[in-house]
């Protein structure tokens, strides 16, 4: 189970990065990165997952005393939340960039923004 | 007058302009002066003897007669025996041989060389051409009477005189020198105006100071 989830995550990352590296269109690159980010998030949560356990919420089903044996690792879950939000922020920023880039060049082709080099 | 002798305006390194007059700035303007014998007779005689026994000829062939001077250095005539030597520079020479006809162009050089020699100095005219123009008496560009332009101490006649005649001429010149009669340089200085007038009469493109130190 865990391995499958993780594999999925890794494949998504690879697909995302490949997409970002080969697509010249900036918007497509951004989308590709969100795919990769999703992959990363899947990997993140899958690391904390443990077979047969439940969510880390101490309610009636999981008394505090047994919690250590009943719940899955809560830390990756906390991390993934942060990672998602940060990914979102960066994506938004990239979109803003895309907007401005299009604004000043009239194109979204990444290879057209090469006047700074060497 | 040649361009290089005309006064010109020059700008110095500090940017100030000033006039340069080559004839005045580059050449000494003094006139020649008379240098009579100053020592007592016996000393002067001794010096005259030394002068006569040490004749240094300026190696300057002015005309065809120069050919006749070369043999003097050969074993056959060997003028060195008589204290005669050739010097390459007028400063060190005291005998100017005018070897044959003298064109007005060469006259200018001869005058310059003569003036650059230090006195006492002697002029020997070689051949008829220097006496009266010789066969070139009616030439448009040779001078006829050398004596009008330079103070000649001795003429050696012939057209051309043979080396033997030249050797004899040297002996005669020595006699004149020893007798204290070879005062051509002083004569030139005394009659400087006259000589210059004569020289300038034939040299139309006069482009040098009046006296070449």
């Amino acid at each position: 189970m865990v391995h499958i989830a993780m594999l999925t995550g890794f494949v998504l990352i690879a697909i995302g990065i490949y997409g970002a590296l080969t697509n010249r269109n900036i918007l497509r690159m951004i989308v590709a990165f969100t795919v990769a980010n999703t992959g990363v998030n899947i990997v993140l949560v899958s690391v904390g997952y443990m077979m047969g356990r439940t969510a880390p919420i101490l309610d009636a089903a999981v008394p505090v005393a047994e919690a250590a044996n009943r719940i899955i690792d809560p830390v990756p879950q906390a991390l993934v939340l942060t990672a998602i939000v940060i990914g979102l922020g960066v994506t938004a920023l990239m979109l803003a960039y895309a907007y401005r880039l299009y604004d000043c060049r009239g194109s979204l082709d990444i290879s057209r923004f090469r006047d700074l080099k060497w | 007058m040649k361009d290089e002798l005309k006064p010109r305006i020059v700008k110095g390194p500090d940017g100030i302009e000033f006039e340069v007059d080559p004839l005045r700035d580059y050449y000494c303007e003094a006139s020649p002066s008379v240098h009579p014998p100053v020592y007592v007779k016996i000393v002067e005689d001794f010096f005259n003897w030394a002068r006569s026994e040490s004749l240094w000829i300026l190696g300057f062939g002015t005309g065809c007669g120069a050919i006749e001077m070369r043999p003097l250095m050969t074993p056959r005539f060997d003028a060195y025996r008589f204290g005669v030597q050739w010097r390459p520079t007028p400063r060190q020479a005291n005998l100017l041989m005018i070897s044959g006809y003298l064109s007005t162009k060469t006259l200018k050089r001869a005058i310059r060389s003569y003036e650059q020699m230090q006195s006492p100095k002697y002029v020997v005219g070689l051949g008829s051409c220097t006496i009266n123009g010789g066969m070139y008496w009616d030439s448009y560009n040779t001078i006829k009477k050398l004596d009008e332009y330079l103070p000649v101490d001795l003429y050696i006649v012939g057209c051309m005189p043979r080396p033997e005649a030249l050797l004899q001429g040297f002996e005669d010149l020595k006699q004149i020198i020893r007798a204290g009669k070879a005062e051509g340089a002083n004569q030139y200085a005394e009659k400087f105006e006259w000589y210059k007038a004569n020289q300038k009469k034939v040299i139309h493109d006069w482009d040098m100071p009046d006296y070449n130190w």
Partner: protein
Amino acid sequence: MDFEWIRIPHALLTLLIVFLYGLLLGAVIQKIGARAGRRHGIPFYQNYIDLIKNYALRTTITHGFMFYLGPVFRLTGGVGLLLFVPTIYGVAMHENFSFAGDLILALYFVFFGSLGMALGAGESGHPYAAIGVSRGLSQVTAAELPFAIAVFAVALQYQTLSVTDIVAAQQGSVFNWTVFTNPLAVTAAMMSFLGSMMRPPFDVVLAPQEIPIGPPTEYHSAYLALMQSNRAIFPIAKMVIYMNLFFGGAANWPVFFLKVFLLYLFAAFVGVVFPRFRVEQSVRWFLVWGVPVAVAGLFWV
């Protein structure tokens, strides 16, 4: 070292002898050269007359103060060189002022006159003078090299820089002379000797018609007289050094006269036989032939 005033008249005596002999020798050598050309050549006393004649000139010109200094430097160089080296070995009278310095002093004093002369000639503003100096200095740098090495070899050989000591070491037998104990060094030095005598094949410096005798082209009268005097003294002073270093020195005047004459004759002989080198040719000649021999001489020690 205590100085005795009597040294001055003694030195002047040496100087006088050398001067008179030098003038004579110059004429004799010239005469020998003339004989080689089947001429009689100048009379042997000609140089004396020329000297008097030059003093007897009535007019002179000057190009400036350095123009005076040129001949003065020149002759000071010659006289100084002579007086800084003992002329006659073992005779206190003719040791001159050699107490002032050793061989090195003599070696470097050679340049004193050349430098001064070059300066005086330069003051005349004459391009020929400058050309002559250019050639002369170029040539002498190469010509001096074998000599310097040979001198070094000799100094090493005798382990001293004192001329007197070097002569002393060669006494006793002819075979003690350096020319036999270190023939290679002497050969090299003699090559240099040719170069420094201003005779063919090394006299392009003075090319009489091309650059009318080079540096002294403007000199005349007493200036020239001083230089003539130097012409008499300086070669002999130089030959004194050679004689002392390589040929056992001279213990009395006759030997001195003979050895100097022979040395002079050697230069004259070569000069009569060989045509003139261009400057770069002579430079190469000294480097290609002189230096290796000198180095061999150095290793001989």
